[in-house]
């Protein structure tokens, strides 16, 4: 492996395989380095052919969360990139499938992409708050509660996790997914 555990406080530029193995054993520094290094790689992999360039950042974040959740499935005797590419491709397809399933989102994507950067206080967006409430109503109760506690009422992930009797990671993932869903619903 080339890296002893006591070196983990100051990891050098290691191969992703080594960093992944260290991460599996709980080395946070190695894990942070791994995620930071793979993020641009993932972005390059997914950006080609996307209708909206902003999606690549969103998909990349989904991939990073997926890497976190499936870290246990990485096998030390296998190269890292095929494992990462499989997850990247899966999340990219998943994102696009969900996006185009939503008819209104599909219509929005055919319009000028500048619409996404409009300010929410723009005149044409009057009543948007009602739309957000309506969209929130379509989210399952548990996810809605987590989202409201974290993003509207301003509780920390740790506080929400305690309140909901869930792990902090699960709470963050849930809030992130709900935000994604809302974004899709609102076009």
């Amino acid at each position: 492996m080339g890296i002893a555990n006591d070196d983990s406080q100051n990891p050098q530029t290691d191969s992703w395989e080594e960093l992944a193995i260290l991460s599996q054993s709980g080395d946070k520094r190695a894990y942070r380095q791994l995620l930071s290094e793979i993020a641009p790689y993932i972005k390059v992999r997914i950006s080609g052919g996307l209708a909206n360039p902003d999606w690549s950042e969103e998909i990349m974040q989904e991939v990073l969360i997926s890497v976190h959740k499936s870290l246990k499935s990485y096998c030390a005797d296998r190269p890292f990139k095929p494992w990462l590419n499989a997850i990247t491709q899966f999340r990219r397809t998943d994102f696009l499938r969900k996006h185009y399933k939503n008819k209104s989102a599909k219509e929005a994507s055919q319009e000028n992409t500048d619409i996404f950067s409009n300010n929410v206080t723009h005149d044409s967006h009057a009543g948007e708050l009602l739309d957000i409430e309506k969209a929130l109503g379509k989210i399952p109760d548990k996810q809605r509660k987590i989202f409201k506690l974290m993003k509207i009422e301003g509780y920390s992930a740790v506080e929400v996790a305690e309140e909901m009797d869930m792990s902090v990671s699960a709470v963050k993932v849930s809030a992130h997914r709900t935000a994604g869903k809302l974004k899709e619903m609102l076009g």
Partner: protein
Amino acid sequence: MTRVANKTNNIIDDLAAELKPVKVLRHPFMRAFPWLVFTVLYILLGIFLLGVRGDFISKLNDSSYIFEMSLVLVMSISATMCSLWMCVPDMRGQKWLVATSLTLISVVLAWIITQAVMNMDHVPFGYWSHCFSDAVFFGLLPAASIVFISMKGSTTQPYLMILMNVIAVSGLGYIGLRITCASDDIGHICVFHILPYIALGAFIGMIGRRFYRW
């Protein structure tokens, strides 16, 4: 864009902060083997409870019967392996397992369709056979257990994995039925030995995506 990039950095920070040592998923074979042993024992128990067909000893000399059983067994084992390898995102590079399983499934289907075209003289609708409930008995627990085992992984091909799970269970259940049921009528086999597993597959297909979401 800067805000989004900051969000990415925040996510990386959060994920790194939450990292705990993980228990690495065991080798797919080591996960498939206990399921196969459990399912074979379960089906043997079912055969013991339901009783072996009266002409079983003579059927062992029937090359067509042996070929059919062997083919279905190999298909089922192959689908089991494929299912458990699919729990790893890149299948550990063993993508040929999918082609092998699909080929075997095609051969079994071709075999059944050929038998049906050549020998089916009636379709036994309109009455109940205990084989239907036996098929459910043979399939239910193995199906639940393989879905449970598969949920521990992180598949990137959920629908294909559902198909493989169903084929793995159906194959072994089908063998159990062919050992306990004395009927060799292809109409009976299609309706009471295969149809329940198609129904099971449709059911798992509808709800399975939720199980394998991660």
